[in-house]
């Protein structure tokens, strides 16, 4: 469904934008030719492997590598001694290689390079590590208690006045909001207050981390790796290895999923250090177990949410406290959780507090709308309960309170044009909304918000002599962006999509590009692509002017052709891009367009999801039977990939809601480091995930684009929890709603009911 409003951007008549051509990387991917991280090889390559801590928390007393180094075939071992202290990357340094302590099960303590994987594995066993095991803490609430085992002796909570005198596991306190919540609750007729917990979930990308590093004797490095941001990887690695940024060239491979988890370094600095030590290329690939134990899942959380409303459904106050553990180092996404929690609502009185907590788990990495889904799960569950108490339809209740243009957001700024109301209206209008439910089925609805970032972006567009276009972007393609960029370039230049070939260039070829994160690529790289195309068009027009011997201003670009701007300019046959490109050598040389900028004007994306779940009351098994995801895309450049993003977020949300969790034993060891027991949904677990694209143009983008990649994972857990609760007749406040938990709740209710 397209919601075309009076906006001139929406009224624009696009020629190729909005169509659904085949992606340029599609054939390679379905035929197996695409080269992912582990597909890169080099002559003389060594195999690198990592020795990891079996302890959740221990002093690292000593590491003896002598026996490993004596093993034939072993070429080098690196440990903490091979990396200099680095104040700027203090935590990253300690995460890639333990220094004073190991802080989680799976924490790297040494890495070896050998002539084969077999030798490398043997060598790992020969590395002798002496640990002094310390008490550990896994749960976020336990970690916050006084007397909990301390991970960092010097961690003084920031954001608290006065500053605490003693160390704790709380890295920082955040607070957002406005108005007076006490006053607001006093005005409420109904108040709902609940506690919630969510488990740590992994991004679950199918491709494990992999890289190939090559370091030459003159101090130059090359790195091929699967990453969402090769410029960021270059920065981390150059820093950790103490080298000039310009001497390290990083090339991003095709990527088999990242979802935020491939925005930092794990193996890359180790591979470079091993290559520097041996003078040979070193390839490293994580096993699935390593991915789970040592890369970043997102935070597990604990929260309390309180919302008050009048009888007619006006929310008078919203208050929440969020406690997120982000693993062994500061930096959980609690700040974003606290910011996004009430973003869907125009509230007079709102207050959110967030605590960033450390525990003996792997350092969290970003995961699709980092921090927001857990907060939305809690808040949207309470909104649903409020709707039931007030006997108001949950969509109506949201419409009564929905944030709109001009409302002050719960985190401060005033919203520009946004599309939450449109997603709610589209939900109400959808056939699913009034479809009958079967026995043991329940329907749940939830809305969600996520920001959209701009950031540093650099794009280069080269017009080739045959009239085709080579487009180089620096943001790894994690969701079909090469297709989207090609569509925007083709639209702007007035040529066919097939005439544009987009690539992801290496770090030496373009200016700095921020990571493919924050739903920014289609917006920011798209904006840069459009500007680069416009710059190229200026040159194309200038070349035509030169040939026609008229002033440059007298030439305009229309429908893929340079033509005289008016009757006064002269009478010349319009020249196509190909016509001008063919003779470029005679008119001044190659024609290119560039754009380097910090993209601003990003527009937020809201979504509303609706889901039907069937619960087996005898086993506690919940099965999603119908799903509709409605989201504002601003303008869908390639609708199939926009729908794919909505579906991907929903699918990951289903897993997070129902079965995914990090399970630790009493020793703090991860019990389920594999896809057998870390249960992401399989295909048959999901119904067709229906989508509705709402288009409320973003005024900050020439085509109206909003980033869509992340918002789709914000509403699912709440929507599913609302559906499960409706189907089972019990309110579920803890994720995952796995069968043992759900059955226990159902049985407890039965027992209470019959008592």
């Amino acid at each position: 469904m397209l919601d075309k409003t009076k906006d001139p951007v929406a009224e624009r008549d696009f020629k190729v934008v909005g169509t659904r051509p085949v992606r340029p990387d599609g054939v390679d991917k379905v035929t197996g030719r695409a080269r992912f991280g582990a597909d890169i090889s080099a002559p003389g390559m060594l195999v690198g492997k990592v020795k990891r801590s079996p302890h959740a928390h221990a002093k690292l007393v000593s590491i003896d590598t002598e026996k490993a180094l004596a093993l034939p075939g072993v070429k080098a071992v690196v440990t903490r001694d091979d990396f200099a202290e680095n104040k700027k990357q203090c935590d990253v340094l300690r995460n890639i290689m333990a220094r004073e302590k190991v802080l989680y099960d799976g924490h790297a303590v040494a890495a070896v390079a050998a002539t084969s994987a077999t030798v490398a594995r043997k060598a790992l066993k020969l590395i002798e590590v002496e640990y002094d095991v310390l008490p550990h803490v896994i749960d976020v609430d336990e970690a916050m208690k006084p007397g909990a085992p301390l991970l960092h002796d010097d961690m003084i909570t920031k954001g608290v006045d006065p500053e605490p005198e003693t160390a704790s596991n709380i890295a920082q306190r955040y607070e957002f909001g406005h108005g007076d919540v006490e006053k607001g609750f006093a005005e409420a007729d109904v108040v709902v207050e609940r506690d919630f917990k969510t488990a740590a979930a992994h991004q679950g990308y199918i491709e494990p981390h992999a890289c190939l590093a090559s370091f030459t004797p003159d101090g130059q490095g090359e790195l091929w790796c699967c990453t969402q941001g090769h410029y960021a990887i270059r920065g981390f690695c150059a820093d950790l290895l103490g080298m000039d940024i310009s001497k390290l060239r990083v090339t991003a491979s095709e990527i088999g999923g990242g979802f935020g988890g491939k925005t930092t370094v794990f193996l890359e600095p180790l591979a470079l250090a091993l290559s520097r030590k041996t003078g040979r290329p070193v390839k490293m690939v994580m096993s699935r177990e390593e991915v789970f134990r040592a890369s970043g899942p997102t935070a597990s959380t604990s929260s309390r949410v309180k919302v008050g409303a009048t009888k007619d459904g006006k929310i008078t106050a919203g208050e929440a406290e969020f406690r997120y553990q982000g693993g062994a180092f500061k930096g959980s996404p609690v700040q974003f959780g606290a910011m996004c929690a009430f973003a869907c609502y125009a509230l007079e009185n709102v207050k959110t507090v967030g605590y960033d907590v450390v525990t003996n788990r792997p350092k969290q990495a970003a995961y699709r709308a980092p921090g927001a889904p857990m907060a939305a799960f809690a808040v949207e569950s309470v909104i649903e309960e409020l709707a039931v108490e007030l006997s108001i339809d949950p969509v109506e209740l949201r419409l009564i309170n929905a944030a709109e243009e001009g409302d002050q957001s719960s985190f401060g700024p005033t919203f520009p044009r946004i599309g939450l109301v449109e997603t709610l209206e589209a939900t109400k209008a959808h056939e699913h909304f009034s479809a009958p439910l079967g026995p043991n089925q329940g329907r749940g609805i939830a809305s969600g918000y996520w920001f959209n970032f701009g950031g540093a972006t650099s794009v280069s567009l080269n017009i080739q002599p045959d009239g085709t276009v080579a487009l180089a972007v620096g943001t790894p393609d994690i969701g079909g962006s090469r297709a989207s960029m090609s569509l925007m370039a083709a639209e702007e230049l007035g040529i066919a999509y097939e005439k544009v070939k987009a690539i992801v260039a290496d770090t030496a070829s373009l200016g700095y590009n921020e990571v493919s994160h924050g739903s920014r690529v289609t917006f920011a790289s798209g904006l840069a692509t459009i500007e680069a195309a416009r710059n190229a068009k200026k040159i194309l027009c200038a070349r035509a002017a030169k040939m026609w011997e008229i002033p440059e201003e007298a030439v305009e670009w229309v429908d893929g052709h340079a033509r005289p701007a008016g009757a006064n300019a002269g009478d010349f046959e319009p020249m196509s891009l190909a016509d001008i490109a063919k003779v470029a050598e005679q008119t001044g040389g190659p024609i290119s367009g560039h754009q380097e900028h910090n993209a601003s004007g990003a527009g937020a994306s809201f979504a509303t999801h609706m889901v039907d779940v069937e619960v087996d009351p005898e086993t506690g098994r919940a099965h999603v039977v119908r799903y509709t995801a409605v989201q504002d895309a601003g303008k869908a450049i390639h609708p199939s990939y926009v729908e794919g993003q909505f579906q991907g977020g929903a699918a990951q949300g289903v897993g997070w809601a129902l079965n995914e969790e990090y399970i630790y034993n009493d020793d703090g060891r991860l019990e389920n480091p594999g896809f057998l027991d870390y249960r992401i949904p399989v295909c048959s677990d999901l119904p067709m995930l229906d989508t509705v694209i709402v288009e409320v143009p973003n005024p900050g983008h020439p085509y109206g684009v909003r980033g869509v990649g992340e918002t789709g994972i914000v509403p699912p857990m709440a929507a599913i929890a609302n559906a499960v609760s409706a189907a089972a007749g019990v309110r579920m406040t803890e994720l995952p709603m796995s069968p043992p938990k759900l059955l226990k709740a159902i049985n407890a209710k039965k027992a209470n009911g019959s008592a």
Partner: protein
Amino acid sequence: MQYEAPQTLDAAVALLADARGAARVLAGGTDLLVQLRSGAIEPDLVVDIKRIDELKKITAEDGGYRIGAAVSGAELGEHEGVRALWPGVVEATELIGSTQVQGRATMAGNLCNASPAADSVPAMVAADATARIVGPDGVRDTSVRDVATGPGQTSLGRGEIVVSIFLPARPARSGDAYLRFIPRTEMDIAVVGAAVSVSLDDEGTCVAARVSLGAVAARVLLVDEGARVLIGTKLDDDALQALAAAASAACSPINDKRGTIEFRTDVAGVLARRAAQTAFERAKG
């Protein structure tokens, strides 16, 4: 590690009997390869039995079927005769892994891996199946119940190989069924498994029954009390409730990452009841 793929059973037995260190039999490999890759096991010798012709066959025998140890789940599933006689055993075997895994996985391998959660084993136990074992001392037959002695442990002696599973003949008006609980829809490991086999008389009264549970104890269980409460009934609600109670009572599960004691005990009763209903419907024809 030494890998051998002999073409005769004698050669396979000799290799295993003469092995110096740890030796493993490779049938489908869907458990063994996973264990090798994870480093959980480091055998010195792996003997692949898939090249031995006689182990790749399904043969009719005494009104039942003998299923070779190298017959894959996919092959079993395509066998009309076995499907008709023991549908519960076939459906249990077909639940193992994914479509790709089905092309490799075998019932005998599932049995010898000795996981209490093995899907095909409760169905085989309910079917009163027999395992034929060949070793340095000759051939012996044993109840499938007696092959696994605990998680990962078997009663097989040095050099012994399970070469076939025998599913016996059964009276007309018989049926069996297997159900398992997994949180997902496929590609998972049973949190609870339940198999029921029943035979009915002409009036539809149950005259024989076997009830077996997986993943609720250190070994797959045969629940005699569950059979007792079905026999003599037409599987009315009371009988089914009694079966559920008997199944739950027989459980001695553990708490682990896949489920709690409470959950497994509860769900064992539910699944036994549901499996019995399906077996009953199949028996009625």
